[in-house]
């Protein structure tokens, strides 16, 4: 009976949020029109930047699989390792194992030298190497390719093999394996994340602060509704809004700007919701400190700034270095963005992303748990 009552209270809180939204036309306009349109339009305007490459691959673990076991392939390995771009080139992987490991976080690319590599060079033919990249790390393919190309300029496979001059890069051709993505497709993940984080954080943290300042939060607290029901009710309301927002952004991206999306729609919506619920948890956590609406806006801008810098918005998190990579590793949004990228760009099923999902789930529980405790233990912060 008590559970049923809690459920009814959750529904009452959620319906109440919708009723308030319905009355507040400017909130509808900002939440469901201005924010999605603004970011998606910025994405459209930024199409000129597609195809941009990254140059930092030195810290990425990359497998080197030598199936030729020749002098030429050995020199190729030495050339790559001596360059500053491939200091984490790992030997000893079997090709099948390397391909399985790709995308699970162990290695980000695999350079395969096939059998007959030296023989082709000796026959004055183009030697071929194959580079497999992690489809879910869209910045990596361009970075690996451009750095191999640069290193091959110093490659001399054997003093007996003369460079023919009409073959580029010392007579070696690189075959890239794996999906290649436009900057626009990558930008869509950024746009969706921005829209979700920007709107969701304000709706939860700003909403709680407003309720605290106007005294409606205190009114809920003197009624029999539990804190858990208030939090779940507000979460469900915002989940509904985020589903709407996701469809608006995708609709604009696909029908107005011609983006191509490989993802299953359900996986995509769920990926967006992971980021949204994570942000809601953080919103509750921030509001539990009793901050005002103005402080919420300031914190929101810092959050966005942090996400821009450290969570793989523009520079893939694998390509970050030093302290920025450490921050990216502990920032749960980075894993959410990773899930979203893999879902949008290559349609990777969520079942294959258990590591990222676990981190998101733990972070959500942590945010909600701490927020719940703080809201319970220090009620006076939210009572004006």
């Amino acid at each position, binding site marked *: 009976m008590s559970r049923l009552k809690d459920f*009814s209270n959750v529904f009452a809180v959620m319906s109440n949020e919708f009723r*308030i939204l319905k009355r507040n036309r400017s909130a509808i306009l900002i939440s469901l029109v201005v924010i999605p349109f603004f970011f998606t339009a910025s994405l459209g305007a930024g199409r000129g930047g597609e195809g941009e490459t990254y140059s930092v691959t030195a810290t990425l673990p990359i497998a080197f699989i030598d199936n030729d076991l020749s002098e030429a392939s050995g020199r190729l390995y030495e050339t790559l390792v001596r360059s500053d771009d491939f200091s984490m080139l790992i030997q000893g992987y079997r090709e099948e194992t390397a391909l399985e490991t790709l995308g699970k976080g162990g290695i980000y690319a695999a350079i395969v030298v096939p059998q007959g590599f030296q023989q082709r060079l000796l026959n004055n033919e183009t030697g071929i190497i194959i580079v497999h990249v992690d489809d879910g790390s869209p910045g990596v393919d361009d970075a690996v390719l451009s750095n191999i190309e640069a290193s091959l300029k110093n490659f001399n496979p054997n003093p007996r093999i003369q460079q023919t001059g009409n073959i580029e890069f010392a007579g070696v051709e690189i075959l890239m394996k794996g999906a290649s993505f436009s900057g626009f497709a990558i930008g869509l993940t950024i746009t969706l994340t921005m829209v979700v984080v920007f709107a969701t954080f304000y709706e939860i943290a700003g909403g709680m602060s407003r309720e605290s300042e106007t005294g409606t939060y205190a*009114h809920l*607290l003197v009624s*029999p509704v539990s804190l858990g029901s208030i939090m779940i009710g507000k979460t469900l309301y915002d989940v509904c809004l985020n589903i709407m927002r996701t469809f608006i952004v995708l609709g604009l991206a696909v029908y107005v700007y011609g983006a191509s999306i490989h993802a299953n729609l359900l996986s995509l919506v769920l990926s967006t919701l992971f980021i949204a619920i994570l942000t809601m948890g953080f919103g509750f956590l921030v509001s539990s400190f009793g901050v005002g609406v103005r402080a919420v806006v300031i914190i929101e801008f810092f959050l966005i700034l942090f996400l821009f810098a450290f969570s793989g918005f523009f520079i893939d998190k694998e390509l970050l270095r030093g302290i920025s990579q450490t921050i990216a590793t502990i920032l749960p949004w980075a894993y959410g963005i990773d899930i979203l990228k893999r879902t949008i760009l290559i349609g990777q099923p969520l079942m294959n992303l258990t590591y990222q999902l676990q981190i998101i789930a733990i972070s959500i529980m942590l945010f909600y748990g701490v927020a719940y405790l703080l809201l319970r233990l220090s009620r006076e912060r939210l009572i004006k």
Partner: protein
Amino acid sequence: MSENAISIKELTKNFGNFTAVDSVNLDIQEGQLFGLLGPNGAGKTTLVRMLCTLLEPSAGTANIAGYDIRSNAAEVRKRIGVVSDGVSLYRDLTVEENLKLFSTLYDLPNRIAKDRMQNLLDMFNFKEKSKRLVGELSSGWMKKAMIITALIHDPEIIFLDEVTTGLDPQSALALREFTRNLCDEGVTVIWTTHYMTEPEMICDTVGIIFEGRLIQIGTPKQLRRSVAEQSVLEIETPNLDNTTLKKIENIGNICKVTYDDPTLKASCVDEGETEIEESVTKILLDSGARIRSINTKEPTLEEAFISLTGGEEEIDRFMEKSRRKA
């Protein structure tokens, strides 16, 4: 339900080093209209907020309708209604929508909620105003809407914290009458105010709170008596002779007679004041004295309050301290 609707034991609330409520002990009986009187910042609202489970006490506890505010807060909330400055309605919703929301949260069956809503709206003359957004209502109507919402679940105890502040005199009067009727129906009311005249008009019992301490509890009359036993009869009568003065002094029940031409002051016990006034007037008229005016001056609750809290200087010092804290 227990005989005492509210039973408070050593209730204390500290905010850092500041003690807002200091070891308050109090019992309020069922159906009583209890007035909590004190200046701004005295600790009235903090006390009410602890009783309605909004704030966690630092020490002590209280039983509300038989339930402990610490261990049984959910049960307490089902049985109370709160009208206070820090507790508001949703301004973006209509009065009716607010009432529907809270009747759902209080688990009222639809039909009962609808009937009760209609009765309360009619009682407060809301009519078409119930369909207006709360944010569009004047402060008086907003306060009435708050009271209706606090009553929607038929609470056993209702906290009315500074409810008449900002109300026009007619609305304040109507609200006082309404509250009195509520008590007559068995509802226990805690009425906090800093207006000294209000508790005298409606409250059965008054508690004076100052600097977080409950310094005196009693009926309004008991509180007045605690600072001045007698009422003072003041008569303006010039050129009074000593013989007449002696006759007045010999009237039974008169404690003290002073004469400072033209003012004659006679202190007398409250119960016999009418008879004494008649006797003094008769002596004066018989002696041919001229009477310009007659006044009976009674001690007021305000005087009692000032006296109990340490005089006007002490209140000024406290108010200054409160202002600085704010």
